[in-house]
């Protein structure tokens, strides 16, 4: 009963509406209202109530589940208007008319009735009012070419009149560049396409509804032109780019990154870079890879880099420290929880390997495998992502040589590893040999770390990697 009353109110409102003008082409009569609802040269159109058509199977009512349009949107015939549901069937309701949506009669989760108005559409006056009967279906052949419609509600590329024109001239709509709103194909676009094909300059259509950006040639009388007309002259038009800027709010994880990076900015960074000869390490890894595989683990270079870093941190513990908020106390962390930057769909996440100081290279490899598979499945836990004390970023797997990494608070240092390149170098005897070279770029917090400390740490790390056997001496 309640719903019924609301509906009759809305129909009364409709009669009183100022939108309804006399359908008269000659006299552009607007009522005394301030706002204009059309910006084109066409006079106000007629409001038509688009009723919910028969769903079939004797169904009389449905639930409105989603609107694809809102009041004020323009629609073309066959555009999706809304999604309704009835008894396990989801139905897409499409528009019967071209026009502008003026009123939605239901909200989400309302019950809509078959035969009652669903939306009010204001129809283009020049097009006239479509009949109340069901739309005659277009011939099957044209379906995919001319009806680029997806259920979720993207607009068609061309109005029926334009489609007809294309069909009459055997033009494939997919080959025509649309210059209208949302890349819609306009009559002018068809005509221009035809002009290109035939090499003639066609006169513009006499009753153009939309003014094209540039009009040329129709009023050129001068004699020199006559010669030119024998050679096909391409119709030049300025390239109309109809792309739009897209603004999205910064949410969730991105928002948190904004906060972290802003805090990182407060840290006075200094950088230190060097070149590492990994020739021996590459060989060692080749030998150990099959051994690890037998144990079911993928062995990359990272476990070596991480273990070498931990050995270095034992000598230079200030790099594994944290400065408190007021810069009054430095906390030297006992655990080496070394973070490994990972690139995922979401962006940069940094899980860490806990207690590297008591892990073997193989242990680290196992843990890395675990973190990597969880990371790609989007299932890393909070403990995996917190408690890091030092970070390595292997950006080289994507590319690059030198970088300028940003320290992740509350840490005080970070290293970025470039890609491994084969480069010519001189050996001790002055001969040129093929070397596997990788670049490292460190950044450190200059409030607690000085350049000399960073350099010495880097040299130690470098010596472990250039001569992997030396790691054996200091392994714990």
């Amino acid at each position, binding site marked *: 009963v309640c719903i019924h009353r609301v509906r009759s109110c809305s129909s009364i409102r409709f009669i009183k509406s100022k939108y309804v003008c006399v359908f008269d082409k000659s006299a552009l009569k607007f009522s005394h209202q301030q706002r204009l609802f059309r910006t084109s040269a066409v006079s106000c159109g007629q409001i038509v109530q688009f009723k919910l058509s028969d769903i079939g199977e004797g169904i009389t009512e449905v639930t409105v589940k989603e609107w694809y349009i809102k009041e004020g949107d323009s629609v073309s015939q066959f555009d999706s208007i809304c999604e309704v549901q009835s008894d396990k069937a*989801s139905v897409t309701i499409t528009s019967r008319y071209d026009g502008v949506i003026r009123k939605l009669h239901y909200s989400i989760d309302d019950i809509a009735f078959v035969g009652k108005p669903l939306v009010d559409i204001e129809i283009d006056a020049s097009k006239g009012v479509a009949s109340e009967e069901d739309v005659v279906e277009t011939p099957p052949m044209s379906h995919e070419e001319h009806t680029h419609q997806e259920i979720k509600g993207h607009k068609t590329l061309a109005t029926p009149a334009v489609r007809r024109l294309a069909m009459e001239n055997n033009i494939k709509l997919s080959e025509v560049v649309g210059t209208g709103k949302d890349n819609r194909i306009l009559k002018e676009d068809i005509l221009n396409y035809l002009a290109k094909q035939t090499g003639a300059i066609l006169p513009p259509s006499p009753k153009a509804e939309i003014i094209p950006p540039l009009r040329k040639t129709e009023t050129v009388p001068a004699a020199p032109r006559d010669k030119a007309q024998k050679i096909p002259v391409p119709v030049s038009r300025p390239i109309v780019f109809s792309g739009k800027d897209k603004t999205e709010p910064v949410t*969730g994880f991105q928002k948190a990154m904004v906060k972290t990076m802003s*805090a990182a900015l407060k840290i006075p960074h200094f950088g230190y870079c060097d070149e590492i000869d990994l020739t021996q390490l590459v060989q060692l890894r080749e030998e150990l890879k099959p051994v690890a595989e037998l144990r079911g683990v993928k062995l990359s270079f990272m476990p070596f880099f991480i273990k070498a870093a931990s050995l270095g941190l034992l000598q230079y513990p200030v790099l594994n420290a944290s400065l408190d908020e007021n810069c009054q106390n430095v906390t030297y962390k006992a655990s080496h929880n070394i973070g490994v930057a990972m690139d995922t769909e979401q962006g940069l996440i940094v899980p860490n390997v806990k207690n590297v100081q008591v892990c073997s290279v193989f242990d680290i490899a196992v843990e890395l495998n675990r973190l990597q598979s969880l990371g790609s499945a989007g299932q*890393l836990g909070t403990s995996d992502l917190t408690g890091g004390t030092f970070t390595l970023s292997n950006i080289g797997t994507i590319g690059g040589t030198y970088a300028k990494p940003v320290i992740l608070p509350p840490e005080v240092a970070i290293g970025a590893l470039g890609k491994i390149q084969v480069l010519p170098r001189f050996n001790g005897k002055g001969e040129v040999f093929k070397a596997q070279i990788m670049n490292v770029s460190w950044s450190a917090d200059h409030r607690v770390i000085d350049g000399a400390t960073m350099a010495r740490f880097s040299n130690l790390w470098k010596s472990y990697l250039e001569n992997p056997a030396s790691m054996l001496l200091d392994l714990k």
Partner: protein
Amino acid sequence: MVLPSLKNCLWLSCILRTPKACFWSTASGGLIIQSVSNDVYQNLAVEDWIHDHMDLEKQQVLFLWRNSPAVVIGRHQNPWQECNLRLLRQKNIKLARRRSGGGTVYHDLGNINLTFFTTRKKYERMENLKLIVKALKALRPQLDVHVTDRYDILLDRQYKISGTAAKLGRTSAYHHCTLLCNADKVVLSSVLKSPYKGLKSNATPSVPASVKNLFEEDPSLTSEMLLDAIAKEYATQHQIDHHITVINPADETLLPGISNKTKELQTWEWLYGKTPKFSISTCLNMAYKDSVLDVRVNMDVKHGRIEVCNIDLPEQWLPPGLYSELVKSLTGSKFCPNETTTLVTTLLRVCPQDDELHSKWSLLCENMIMLM
């Protein structure tokens, strides 16, 4: 999966000759196709493709498909309400949202899917279901199967062996249904039980039912036999050859645009973002030190994102600045455990480095993540 022999050359040449409309079949009246893929997203994409691109005026289509383990929810349903998302993630079972209405189902290779494509005018679910029952009875006359007025098929008058859903567009429509041959009922019942409490939503709810596999009734039945029997009955009723055409849902030449459709079905925006607005009102019981804290949580989720978030913590349990930072970050963020985990762990970096604070923060956040 053994299929009847294909007249490969013949239908291939048919495709090459007429690349777009009216391809595939040399027979008119009807076409039976079967998917080689067990990927639920690819198979749903094929349904979309046929619905959008094929002319069904001259020939109707029957599409046969099976999926590796997946939970499929209806167009307007709420995945948190319908299934145990945590369990799905653990067991690597996929979640899919189809475009038709109706309730949630569990698919695995022991369940077969049948889609009947017709023009909008010829949409008729009862007839399709009666066809299936006829095929089953022809195969095994002693089977007690019948169609209910809710468009279910019941075995022995009590067990549901088939559920139905439909999608209607402007000119075409499809009705698809499942058929339980030999599905894993243990996994089925565990994944379709939602652990999430305090959910309030207008999403279409599922109606739970007792299910049984046809295999349990008659162990000599296999999925292949059932598919074949149904195809045979369809062929008879449409007066066409009993011939099943095999298609590969990854074939972009045959089905142009299919890979985009497949991708779209896997996006977060489709799977979770299409959930109708819902609210959560629940209580977290957090054991901290010697006591247990009862924390009231209220959240509104729209388009899969947290619109409003209220956490009723005891005063000063967390520094107020930190609490408001948490709420501000959660607002607008996806209602997703992964997103929330990365969000809260990143935020922790800019908190004071205090062990007690960190453990409180972790406790609260872990509990919040369990809600998702």
